[in-house]
């Protein structure tokens, strides 16, 4: 990797976002608006909102970054810029980590806004600190981004790319413990849940909600979530081929 190329790639991706004001507005505002909806859905069930709202602080960035990056990378492929980039001295990791840096920054802003809204507008009751919520929201966003980059390798069209979202995201959402406690799941499902990274993202946020200081489970889950993101990025790098048919 070359730091100059890495940072200029991240800068270029951010520049593209800057030119696309509507996408920028959606990234910043949409999770906060969705959280508002959830707040009113659980209007008279504060405890439920405290739990579901907190989990959503991790899930919104994950889902949105998955979609945004899988489309962004698909565009690189279909417009020929990817092929061009791969004929230059840029390394595949410069490109992928450039994306990670740029969208990681966008995710941090997104997570900051939605978390602030949860705290100050909706007075969400979370035992742990605002900063731990932020750490996991950003980690989840980076995981979503890494999986999005990987998924885009298997999509030839936008139609396929957007459908990977439910394919990758929904099973993780169903099995992460939000809808049904993991302990009560059938053996096979529980086993599958254990190998899905979102399970750990949700578990970590539940820990932040319950304990005032960081727990060892939180640290472990952070390592798992970030580790899964790195593995997905490495696999995505392996799918970028300089030579094609």
């Amino acid at each position: 990797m070359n730091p100059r190329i890495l940072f200029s790639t991240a800068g270029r991706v951010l520049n593209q976002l800057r030119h696309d004001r509507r996408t920028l507005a959606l990234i910043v505002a949409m999770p906060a608006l969705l959280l508002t909806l959830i707040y009113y859905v659980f209007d008279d069930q504060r405890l439920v909102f405290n739990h579901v709202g907190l989990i959503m602080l991790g899930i919104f960035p994950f889902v949105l970054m998955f979609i945004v990056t899988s489309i962004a990378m698909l565009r690189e492929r279909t417009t020929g810029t990817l092929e061009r980039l791969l004929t230059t001295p840029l390394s595949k990791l410069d490109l992928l980590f450039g994306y990670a840096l740029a969208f990681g920054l966008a995710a941090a802003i997104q997570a900051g806004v939605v978390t602030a809204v949860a705290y100050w507008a909706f007075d969400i009751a979370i035992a742990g600190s605002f900063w731990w919520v932020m750490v996991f929201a950003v980690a989840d966003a980076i995981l979503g981004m890494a999986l999005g980059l990987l998924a885009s390798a298997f999509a030839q069209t936008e139609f396929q790319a957007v459908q990977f979202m439910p394919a990758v995201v929904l099973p993780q959402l169903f099995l992460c413990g939000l809808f049904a406690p993991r302990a009560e799941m059938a053996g096979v499902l529980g086993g599958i849940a254990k190998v899905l990274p979102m399970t750990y993202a949700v578990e970590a946020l539940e820990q932040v909600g319950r304990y005032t200081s960081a727990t060892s489970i939180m640290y472990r889950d952070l390592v798992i979530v970030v580790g899964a993101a790195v593995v997905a990025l490495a696999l995505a790098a392996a799918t970028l081929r300089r030579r094609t048919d």
Partner: protein
Amino acid sequence: MENAIEVADLVVKRGGRLVLDHLSTSMPVGSVTGLLGPSGSGKTTLMRAIVGVQKVESGTVTVLGQPAGSPKLRPIVGYLTQAPSVYADLTVRENARYFASLYDGVSRADADRAIADVGLSSAADQVVNTLSGGQRSRASLACTLLSNPKLVILDEPTVGQDPVLRDDLWQRFHELARAGTTLVVSSHVMDEASRCDRLILIRDGLIIADDTPSAVQTQTGTNDLEAAFLKLVRQREDEGVPA
């Protein structure tokens, strides 16, 4: 003269179809070679093989002494794809500066100069989306030339350009060649052939002529290259060579 490109017995298949059929040729350093032939003849595939982005069945492509596509070549080979591959949501200048940043020792000033060289200075701060087709392809060309590559592969760089600009671009290509750059330029317009030092005429994955424009004209007894191309195709058909 030393060769910048050596293609030996190159076979490429795409989707089970033979696109390049045991093709061999070479291109000397500091020359402008025109790759001509109808759409679907294999021009782009040959160019992709020279750049090293094409999977090949057999044969070798050697570029500046290295196997095509080797990492050492990446800083010194510039490739312009047929469809303009620039970021449509960035300005011309942002595109050029980004591509400039990928090369060691290529500055923002080099990026701006490349934009001026393709006649896009006045549109430099326009988002590519808002440009005409011809301007877009020149924006893409600027991004190819800004790193001052030793070998430049241009896939139909002059399509959609007005005649004055086309003339300017060809003059620029020859300036680069005089400075020692090797250029391979594809076109399906025969009137551009006379601008090249050498011509390679391709049809159905086979080279049907590989010579200077004047030699091709002499050989076919016509001074019109379009007619020469036709004549060569007919000759082969008469000789029973599958065309």
